[in-house]
C-alpha cells in the first residue's frame, strides 16, 4: 500500500516534468521576435557595426550554432534529451555561458531569500491566525493581526519600494539593493553572512509583511472549524493543559490544509517574486528571467521556466510524501 503510493507520486512527478518541458519548448516559440534578430537590433541601436554584407552569413552561422536551422521536431527531441540531462544549452545574450551555470549561481539567492521568507510568514501567520480563533488568546492578538490583513492587500513590490525609500534612501540604515556589497567576494564567514542578511532584510520584509495576513486569515478560518469539533471537547474534558490542546489538537489539525497551500506557495514563490528581485536588484532567478525576457534569450527563458516548474513539482512531491505522516487518512 505504502509503496504503491510512493511509486504513484514519483510517476506523477516525472509526467509533470516532461509535460512542463514540452510546454516550455512550445511557448517561447509562439512569441514574436527572433533571438538572433533581437541581438542584432540591440547592437544596431548601440551603433555597432553588424557585419554589413556578411550579416546574413553571420546570422546563419549563429542559427546553426544554436540549432535553430533544424526542423522543429528535431529541435524538440534534442531539447527533451538535453533537458533530462539538465543540459539547458547556451545563453544567447551571455554567450558562451551555459544556462544551467547561470541558474545554479542564481538559485541559492532565490531559494535563500524567498523560501526563507515564505516559511517565516507561513509560521508566523499560521500561529497568529490560530491564536485569533483561540478563545483564551491574549486580546492584543486581535488588535494587531488585522493590520497585517490590510497589508496583504498591498502588492509586495510596491511595499518593497516604500520600504526601500524609507529605510535605504531616507534613513540610510540598509543597502539599496543587491545581495551583498559590491566588491566583496562571496565566502563562508560571519562578515559575509551579516552582509547578506543586511541586504536580504528589506526584500524579505516586503514579502513577509504582505503575506502574513494571508496565512493568518486562512488559518483562522480552518481553526474555527476545528475548534467546533467533538474531539476538541473531549480533549478539554480529559483535562489536558491548554498548551497541549492548542498545539496538539487544534493547530495540529488546522495546519493540514495550510500545508497544501504552503507547497503551492513555495513552488510559485520563485516566479511570483520576480518583481521583488527586480526592485531590489537581487541576483536571483527572477532577475535572471527578467533580463532574459528583455533580450528574447530563448534558452535562458526556457531554463528559468523549467527551473520554476521543477521547484513547483519538487515542493508538491515533497509535501505529497510528507503528508501521510501529517494526516494518516491520506494514504489510501
Amino acid at each position: 500500500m505504502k509503496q504503491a503510493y510512493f511509486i504513484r507520486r514519483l510517476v506523477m512527478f516525472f509526467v509533470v516534468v516532461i509535460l512542463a518541458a514540452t510546454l516550455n519548448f512550445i511557448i517561447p516559440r509562439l512569441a514574436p521576435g527572433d533571438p538572433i534578430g533581437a541581438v542584432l537590433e540591440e547592437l544596431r541601436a548601440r551603433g555597432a557595426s553588424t557585419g554589413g554584407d556578411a550579416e546574413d552569413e553571420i546570422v546563419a552561422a549563429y542559427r546553426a550554432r544554436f540549432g535553430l536551422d533544424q526542423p522543429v521536431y528535431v529541435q524538440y527531441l534534442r531539447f527533451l534529451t538535453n533537458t533530462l540531462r539538465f543540459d539547458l544549452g547556451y545563453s544567447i545574450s551571455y554567450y558562451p555561458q551555459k544556462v544551467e551555470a547561470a541558474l545554479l549561481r542564481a538559485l541559492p539567492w532565490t531559494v535563500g531569500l524567498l523560501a526563507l521568507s515564505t516559511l517565516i510568514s507561513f509560521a508566523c501567520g499560521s500561529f497568529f491566525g490560530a491564536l485569533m480563533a483561540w478563545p483564551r488568546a491574549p486580546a492584543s492578538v486581535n488588535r494587531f493581526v488585522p493590520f497585517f490583513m490590510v497589508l496583504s492587500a498591498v502588492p509586495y513590490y510596491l511595499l518593497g519600494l516604500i520600504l526601500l525609500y524609507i529605510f535605504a534612501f531616507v534613513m540610510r540604515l540598509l543597502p539599496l539593493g543587491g545581495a551583498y556589497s559590491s566588491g566583496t567576494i562571496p565566502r563562508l564567514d560571519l562578515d559575509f553572512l551579516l552582509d547578506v542578511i543586511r541586504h536580504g532584510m528589506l526584500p524579505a520584509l516586503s514579502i513577509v509583511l504582505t503575506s502574513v495576513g494571508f496565512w493568518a486569515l486562512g488559518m483562522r478560518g480552518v481553526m474555527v472549524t476545528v475548534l467546533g469539533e467533538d474531539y476538541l471537547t473531549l480533549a478539554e474534558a480529559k483535562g489536558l493543559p491548554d498548551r497541549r490542546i492548542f498545539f496538539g489538537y487544534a493547530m495540529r489539525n488546522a495546519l493540514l490544509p495550510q500545508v497544501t497551500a504552503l507547497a503551492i506557495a513555495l513552488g510559485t514563490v520563485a516566479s511570483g517574486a520576480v518583481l521583488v528581485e527586480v526592485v531590489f536588484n537581487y541576483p536571483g532567478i527572477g532577475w535572471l528571467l527578467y533580463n532574459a525576457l528583455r533580450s528574447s534569450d530563448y534558452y535562458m527563458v526556457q531554463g528559468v521556466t523549467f527551473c520554476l516548474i521543477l521547484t513547483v513539482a519538487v515542493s508538491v512531491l515533497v509535501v505529497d510524501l510528507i503528508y501521510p505522516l501529517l494526516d494518516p487518512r491520506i494514504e489510501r
Partner: protein
Amino acid sequence: MSQETALQVKNLRVSYMTGDQQVKAVDDVSFSLYPGERLGIVGESGSGKTTLAMALMRLHKPPAYIMGGEAILDGRDILSLGRDQMRQTRWSKLSLIPQGSMNSLNPVIKIKHQMADAIEAHERGWTRGQIAKHIGELLGRVGLPDSVAEMYPHELSGGMKQRVCIALAIILEPSVIIADEPTSALDVVVQRVVMQTLNDVQEQLNAAMIIIGHDMGLMAQSADRLAVMYAGKMVEVSPIASFFKDPQHPYSKLLISSLPSPEEKRELAGIPGSQPSLLDLPSGCAFHPRCPLVVERCTGEIPLLRDFSGDRRAACHLVEEQSS
C-alpha cells in the same frame, strides 16, 4: 439516605444569554448520585440534558453560563474551582463519554497517544512502560485487541470507536462517569453490546454513572434510577422499577404510554402539543398546557420537586396532594 454521595448537585441553574434575554436551560436542578449507581436522565431534545452534563464538566461554552448552584464532588464544589483545579478534576474524578463519539477522537493521532496524554496531563508519575501496559489492559477490558492502540480512528468501526471512548473514560478510574447519549450513533445490536460493556466497566470501578438519553428501553435495561427532565426542570426522579410500574408525574405517565409494549396490543398514545419554548414558558407548571389532569393551581404556582414516598420524588401538585 445516609449513604455517602459520589456527586451532589444542588439548585444548579444554567442559562443561555441571547441578546437581553435569559433562557433557563437548566432551572434549579438538584439530585444526588451514589457510588456504583446508574442514574438515567431522559427528556425531549432541548429539555436541558446535555447542557446539564456540559455544565457539570464545566465545558459549557458562551452564551451558556452557570447562574448558580453547587455540585459537590469529593467534598468540594466543582463549580467554584479555579481553572487549573478544575482541569485536574476533569477525568481523574469526573469523566465523559461524549455524545458524538464518532468524531470524538482526533483523526490524526494514534489511539495510544490519545489515551496516554490523558494520563500524562494528570501527573501520575507513571513510566512509559506502565502507561502502555495500562492502555493495553483497558482495551482488553472493553473487548478490543491490543493492536488498536497503534491504530488511527479512521481504521476503527463506529462500535470500536465507542469502546475506545469507554476505555478512555475509565483510564484514571474516576468516581463519576457522565455518558451523554453513549450509543445514539450506533445500530441497535451494537448498542446493546456497547451498553453492556459500559455497565460492566462501571461496576468494576464502582463508579457512579449518569446516562443521558431518550431511549426508554435502554434506560430500563441499564439505569438504577431515572430522572425525567422537562423544559429545564427535573419533574420526576424514581427507582427504575417503580417508575415503569407506577409513574407519578403526568408527563412520565404519557411517556410510558407512548412506548410500544409486547404484552398488549394497543394504539400508541403520543403526547399532545409540543415542548414550550424556553424563551416563553407557560406560567406555573411548564407542562400544564399539555397536561390532561390540569387543575387551576397548575397555571399559577410552579410545583417543586418533593419526596412523596421514601425514595421517589416528583414535581406535581396532584402528586403532592395525593400523598399528603
